[in-house]
């Protein structure tokens, strides 16, 4: 039996870290976390991506963070820092949103869950846990609301794919068919009472995320039970490699790439989740200015038409070689079997069908602007 290699002591670990290593996962430092990028024993990143698109895949996403808001002014506090309109949520409903700086650029993108009139939960990115907690503390002090960073309390497991509901239904008493997309409930999962079960995810497929106690023994038990229950559907463990290719095909933003402290909501094309009709929120004034002035760059989807893979950070250049834009994320799309990318380009080059040059190791390689999302799951 091979010894399970130890990770660097300075990297943070989820409660499932030992399990991933026992499964022979290839581990990587992701934003200071020791995380599985793929599991070679069950096929690796391409197999994992295809499992999610055709059956079901299981992800440990416990590195994500969680901030709870409670109190008589919890809604007001949330409304002040979140760009979407949380007043539209009813208990059991969630939505995609973002916290913005006054310049209308991104602190982070988030999922806002309304648990009760005085109880909201933000799920936030791993790499921005501390920054987000600091931002919240700085900005909700004036409200009768308690904001708690409960990130370390939960192991979060994502079960994603067309067979996800069948898999999870075997393990829970909650009626999953009644939970609509972006809604959640509480139920017993693997014998654990009052577990939050959300129909959310980052893959472009149907699926669920469950939030269980971050205890290593409990987390390992549930992880193995989920994989066992999923065996008949072809379920395999999936790492961050597949997580990235899946979200890219579905045109979902990754913080630090499509959204960041220097990119605004309109540039990123996320205005659908930004409710300017709200009377007040951080970033609103800047958004109105930007809306009036227009943007200098816009996010587009690209498909390579000459041989080559556009990757994160590669320049978009005009025919004379001058840089006019930048690839934010790019890869082979394992399900679509094409090389795709998201990129910021000047609005005049953003028309569908526009042909652009991606500079790949000094060479201009042609790509065309295509509609996004690149992949949309089939309607049931």
């Amino acid at each position, binding site marked *: 039996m091979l010894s399970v290699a130890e990770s660097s002591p300075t990297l943070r670990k989820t409660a499932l870290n030992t399990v991933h290593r026992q499964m022979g996962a290839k581990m990587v430092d992701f934003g200071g976390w020791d995380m599985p990028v793929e599991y070679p024993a069950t096929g690796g990143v391409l197999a994992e991506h295809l499992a999610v698109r055709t059956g079901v895949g299981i992800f440990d996403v416990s590195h994500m963070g969680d901030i709870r808001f409670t109190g008589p002014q919890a809604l007001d506090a949330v409304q002040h820092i979140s760009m979407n309109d949380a007043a539209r949520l009813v208990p059991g409903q969630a939505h995609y949103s973002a916290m913005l700086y006054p310049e209308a650029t991104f602190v982070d993108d988030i999922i806002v869950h309304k648990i009760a009139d005085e109880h909201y939960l933000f799920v936030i990115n791993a790499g921005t846990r501390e920054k987000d907690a600091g931002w919240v503390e700085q900005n909700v002090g004036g409200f009768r609301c308690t904001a708690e960073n409960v990130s370390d309390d939960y192991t979060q497991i994502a079960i994603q794919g067309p067979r996800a509901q069948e898999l999870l239904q075997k393990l829970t008493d909650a009626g999953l068919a009644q939970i609509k997309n972006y809604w959640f409930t509480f139920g017993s999962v693997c014998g654990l009472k009052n577990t939050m079960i959300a129909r959310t995810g980052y893959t472009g497929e149907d699926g669920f995320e469950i939030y269980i106690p971050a205890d290593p023994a409990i987390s390992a038990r549930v992880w193995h039970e989920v994989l066992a229950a999923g065996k008949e559907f072809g379920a395999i463990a999936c790492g961050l490699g597949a997580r990235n290719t899946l979200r890219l095909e579905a045109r979902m933003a990754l913080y630090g790439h499509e959204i960041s402290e220097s990119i605004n909501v309109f540039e990123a094309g996320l205005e659908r989740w930004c409710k300017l009709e709200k009377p007040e929120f951080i970033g609103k004034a800047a958004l109105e200015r930007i809306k009036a002035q227009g943007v200098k760059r816009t996010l587009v989807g690209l498909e390579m038409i000459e041989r080559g*893979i556009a990757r994160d950070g590669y320049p978009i250049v005009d025919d004379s070689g001058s840089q006019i834009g930048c690839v934010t994320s790019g890869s082979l799309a394992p399900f679509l079997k094409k090389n795709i990318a998201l990129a910021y380009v000047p609005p005049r080059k953003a028309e569908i069908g526009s042909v652009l040059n991606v500079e790949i190791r000094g060479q201009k390689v042609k790509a065309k602007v295509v509609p996004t999302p690149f992949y949309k799951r089939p309607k049931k």
Partner: protein
Amino acid sequence: MNYPSSLKYTKDDEWLKIEGDTGVVGITDYAQNALGDIVFVELPKVGAEITAGKPFGTVESVKAVSELFAPANGTVTAINEELAKSPEKVNQDPYGAWMVKIKLKDAGEAGKLMSSADYEKYASERG
């Protein structure tokens, strides 16, 4: 891991098969395993000069781009066209999925590369 004894090896994980003054080049089992699924291979044109220790192409996995380093000095006489359509062949059969054939400048120099036993030791030290 498999390292045929008839081949020579480099510290950059390429293998070289010497047949008279022709060299055949590919990447080792260790390399393909470390890379994971290979999705793209970029090779030089026939006629290109390659220089020992310098990059002559790239091999890409889903996540990363890796340079290919020439094991010896020479001129490219053939490239494996199959790898454009089927890069996964490198994972499936790293010693059968040759990348380039070269006319060696100096077969004697090329013979000084690592043996299979030395390379196996080197690979196992890296984990």
